[in-house]
């Protein structure tokens, strides 16, 4: 993955000078990749999930829970487990040795937070329905292996965020805050993975921005919350770094929880799925079609109601990560007139995506983002190189950013057999969908990554959401579904998904009719053949391509229940009935179908409100806890109990009758 490449990272003013250099080399590498792989065909569906863990350390005697910063030690233990390596697992970045035969054991990876761990299956999944059932088993195995390589007091937990992160004490081993890289008054530099890439990333984002990152999460106003709420943990009297001035300049907003470091965002755990498409066109189509589903998946998986020991008024992590890596300057943000920078940029590097990229005839110009910023020079280079306008626009949009981490050694010579400069920009654009060209040097195909989902407490839920997304992609391709929505509506939906219990209380823009229109034939012949030449599956003569009528009539506001389970009036069919219709069209054995039914029931229940999101469950847990004073403060003892409860839920998955509100009854059979 190249993530841990070593070298001499340039500090910000230096890195900035090389930004154009890296971008133009990145574009050349992209063109080389694209030329080589644009004709790649008939790749199988392969897919993978990524699960991220927080490593917590319990002190049961003291009723304390802390974040463990032992990621490096744990990875080292995993990497030197010869049995794991023999089975094909381990830590690829540290890996040694070969494996033979069988399904390879899971793999573990470092993440930004030094308290995090990422695990992936040893090899990608296919569409065999038995594979779908192996996902959960594999996730459980991953957690078991991770746990086995930790101290007995440690546990790999899948909460999106650690509720006490930034309280200046709940980390072990302890380090004081206010280091030179992060300059955070809440967390130490040691919170980040010590590999030079990560502190440099944080430091250069801060330097480019000209101040620390600024995360203000609205606080949940409970009956006894002091109002206006002024975050009592903010220290206004620090004078160690120039950035300590930020809070005196009003960085911490009233009625908000204030945070000031990349770790508060990039330290969140997500559930991400990557699919391999059959060819570039199918990949482009999947990218577009899954994009409007992003906010829906985010609201359905909501699991982030607490920050820095306070109840937040939002349920998901998304905007916090967005702000935690927002490297835009005041000019780019529109706070001051443009003088040195090239343009105003409406979104952070981490944001909902802003492009559609398919050559699908159903894609109307009106769906595109009117505020899209594109580097026209780089786009012209891509178009000169043969790339079509739409795809060139996409990449030239990603390339409006500066590369953040540049290693001096990499600037010597352009290697078109590599993708490092391309990836430098591509993989620091954290949009909710990512379109991934085949990496150089192996047979992997075009891929699409689905990134909006929050990690769930149990492996059961994480498997359920992973499998659901896989099945949705199959339904999209089989039924030729159309979810196109103007991009600004998806951007708005992403905001909507943040509010408390958005899954039940809010409405989201969604396309009214995702089904292909009925075909009209004249004496057995389609009236407009050939319009689908660019769609991945052109089965025979295709349907007409030019819908008319105002775009505004194509979509409406719907609840998530309507989007998932369908409208009672027979209007919108519902994603779940679409998935079930797909399952009705393929051969599935009874055991598999019944296990899949448990997954689908979970998601149906979350959408209808019958089952609770983790966010709702955690809020209720806090509200009913004896130590909670209804003042929005989530104290140490409460957090200890809460994380213990999460551990219990992870282990039992509701079989002990606990957290049934979230998981339903189905797990009792397991």
């Amino acid at each position, binding site marked *: 993955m190249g993530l841990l490449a070593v070298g001499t990272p340039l500090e910000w003013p230096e890195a900035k000078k090389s930004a154009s250099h890296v971008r133009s080399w990145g574009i050349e590498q992209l063109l080389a990749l694209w030329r080589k792989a644009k004709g790649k065909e008939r790749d199988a569906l392969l897919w993978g999930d990524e699960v991220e863990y927080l490593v917590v350390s319990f002190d049961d005697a003291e009723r304390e829970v802390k974040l463990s910063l032992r990621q490096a030690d744990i990875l080292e233990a995993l990497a030197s487990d010869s049995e794991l390596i023999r089975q094909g697992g381990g830590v690829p970045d540290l890996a040694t040795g070969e494996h033979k035969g069988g399904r390879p054991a899971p793999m573990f990876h470092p993440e930004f937070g030094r308290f995090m761990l990422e695990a992936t299956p040893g090899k990608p999944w296919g569409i065999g329905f038995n594979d779908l059932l192996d996902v959960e088993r594999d996730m459980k195995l991953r957690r078991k292996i991770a746990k086995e390589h930790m101290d007995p007091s440690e546990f790999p937990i899948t909460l999106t965020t650690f509720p006490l992160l930034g309280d200046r004490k709940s980390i072990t081993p302890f380090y004081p805050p206010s280091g030179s890289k992060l300059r955070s008054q809440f967390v130490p530099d040691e919170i980040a993975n010590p590999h030079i890439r990560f502190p440099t990333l944080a430091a250069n984002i801060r330097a480019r921005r000209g101040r620390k990152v600024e995360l203000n999460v609205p606080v949940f106003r409970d009956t006894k919350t002091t109002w206006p709420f002024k975050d009592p943990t903010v220290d206004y009297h620090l004078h160690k770094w120039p950035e300590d001035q930020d809070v005196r300049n009003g960085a911490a907003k009233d009625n908000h929880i204030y945070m000031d470091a990349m770790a508060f965002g990039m330290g969140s755990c997500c559930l991400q799925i990557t699919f391999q498409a059959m060819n570039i066109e199918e990949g482009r189509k999947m990218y577009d079609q899954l994009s409007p589903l992003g906010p829906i998946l985010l609201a359905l998986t909501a699991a982030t109601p607490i920050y820095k020991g306070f109840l937040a008024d939002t349920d998901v992590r998304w905007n916090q990560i967005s702000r935690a890596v927002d490297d835009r300057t005041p000019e780019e943000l529109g706070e001051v007139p443009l003088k040195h920078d090239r343009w105003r940029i409406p979104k952070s590097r981490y944001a909902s995506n802003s492009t559609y990229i398919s050559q699908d005839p159903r894609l109307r110009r009106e769906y595109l983002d009117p505020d899209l910023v594109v580097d026209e020079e780089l786009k012209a280079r891509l178009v000169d190189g043969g790339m079509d306008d739409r795809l060139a626009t996409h990449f030239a949009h990603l390339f409006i950013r500066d590369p953040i981490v540049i290693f001096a050694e990499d600037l010597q010579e352009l290697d078109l057999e590599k993708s490092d400069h391309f990836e430098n920009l591509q993989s620091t654009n954290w949009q909710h969908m990512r379109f991934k060209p085949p990496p150089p040097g192996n047979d992997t195909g075009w891929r699409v990554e689905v990134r909006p989902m929050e990690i769930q407490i149990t492996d059961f839920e994480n498997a359920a959401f992973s499998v659901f997304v896989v099945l949705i992609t199959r339904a999209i391709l089989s039924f030729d579904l159309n979810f196109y929505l103007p991009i600004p509506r998806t951007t708005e939906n992403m905001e909507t998904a943040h509010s408390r219990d958005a899954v039940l209380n809010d409405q989201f823009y969604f396309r009214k009719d995702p089904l292909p229109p009925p075909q009209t034939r004249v004496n057995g012949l389609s009236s407009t053949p050939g319009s689908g030449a660019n769609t991945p599956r052109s089965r025979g003569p295709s349907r007409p391509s030019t819908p008319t009528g105002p775009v505004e009539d194509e979509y409406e506001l719907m609840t998530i229940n309507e989007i998932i389970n369908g409208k009672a009036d027979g209007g919108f069919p519902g994603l779940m009935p679409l998935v079930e219709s797909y399952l009705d*069209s393929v*051969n599935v054995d009874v055991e598999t179908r019944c296990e899949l039914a448990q997954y689908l029931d979970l998601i149906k229940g979350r959408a209808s409100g019958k089952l609770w999101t983790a966010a709702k469950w955690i809020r209720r847990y806090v509200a009913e806890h004896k130590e909670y004073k209804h003042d929005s403060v989530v104290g140490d003892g409460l957090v200890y109990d809460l994380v213990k409860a999460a551990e219990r839920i992870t282990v039992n998955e509701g079989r002990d009758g606990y957290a049934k509100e979230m998981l339903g009854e189905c797990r009792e059979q397991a």
Partner: protein
Amino acid sequence: MKLILSTSNLLDAGSSIRRDPTQKSNAELVSSFRANFAAHSHPSNGYTNGLGNGNKPTPRSSYTAWTHMAEDGRQELEIPKLDFEHSALQEEREQYDITVKLFYLPGAPTENRETQTREAVKLVMKELHMPSIDLLIISFPGIYFDEEEDCPDKISTRGPVEADPESLECQIKTWKTLEALHEERVVKKLGIAEFGHDRLVQFLEKTTVRPSVDQVNLRDCCSVPKKLLLLAKSKGIELLVHNDSSNVLPRGTLRELLGPEHAGAGVLAEPTRTGEKRKSMHGEEVKNGHADGEGLKGEVQPLWVVKYTAVVKNRGVVENKGYFAVAELSG
């Protein structure tokens, strides 16, 4: 006269979506026949909007314009005219998993099963432009797997029992045709539908080529009897799930599909036994473009229905799915 109804690839029309789990599960078949008839009989309707509900009563051409009577004098009417020109699968044979399910309908005579089975398989192979199929499942009338099942809620959603099961001898006689197709390598694997444990035991004793598949309808009730699970496992029979109704095409449904009324295709005339003149209060004759006396007369008896699906194996994408139905019209 023999009537051959077809849907073409119903995935193109979006009519295979299960909108409501409680609705009758032959809704897919009915709506896809209807959609295909409409697509062929409303040539002027054209493409109207992207909203897919454009079932507006535009003038419809006479059925003679879009159906096809066999030219060699056989009394055989294709509804609509069969056209295999654009229906071929896109990739090579080995990329696909092709499943065919043949429903012998209640009330149809059983003597011609061999001809019917071969005809059904041939139609599907012609449609898909493929020399063989992977799995042929047959569904006998009157068999309900859930009779042996411990799931009380289910019976109520099943619908009325419309036929008694036929004798084991009769089923085995039919099975011999499937065995022949297997022998001829036209069909790789054979299957049956809705067989419970006891029925399956008896059946297995009499077969030469064993079924590889028993397809059962779970209707959201995941309680497959242990006995059946064990038997299937020990005999290497895969238990697959389906969601078809047991009688996919009752006579009344077929008459509605083909009849002169608004939602019908206008192939059949009003049933003669009513002895009344068609009512004109809705002015439908005019709208539908039917002159009095147009439309075939007689009693219609559905004989069989075949459902086919072609799935791209390593991608799990359904590329083609559709139905053919054959009925006998007697004067």
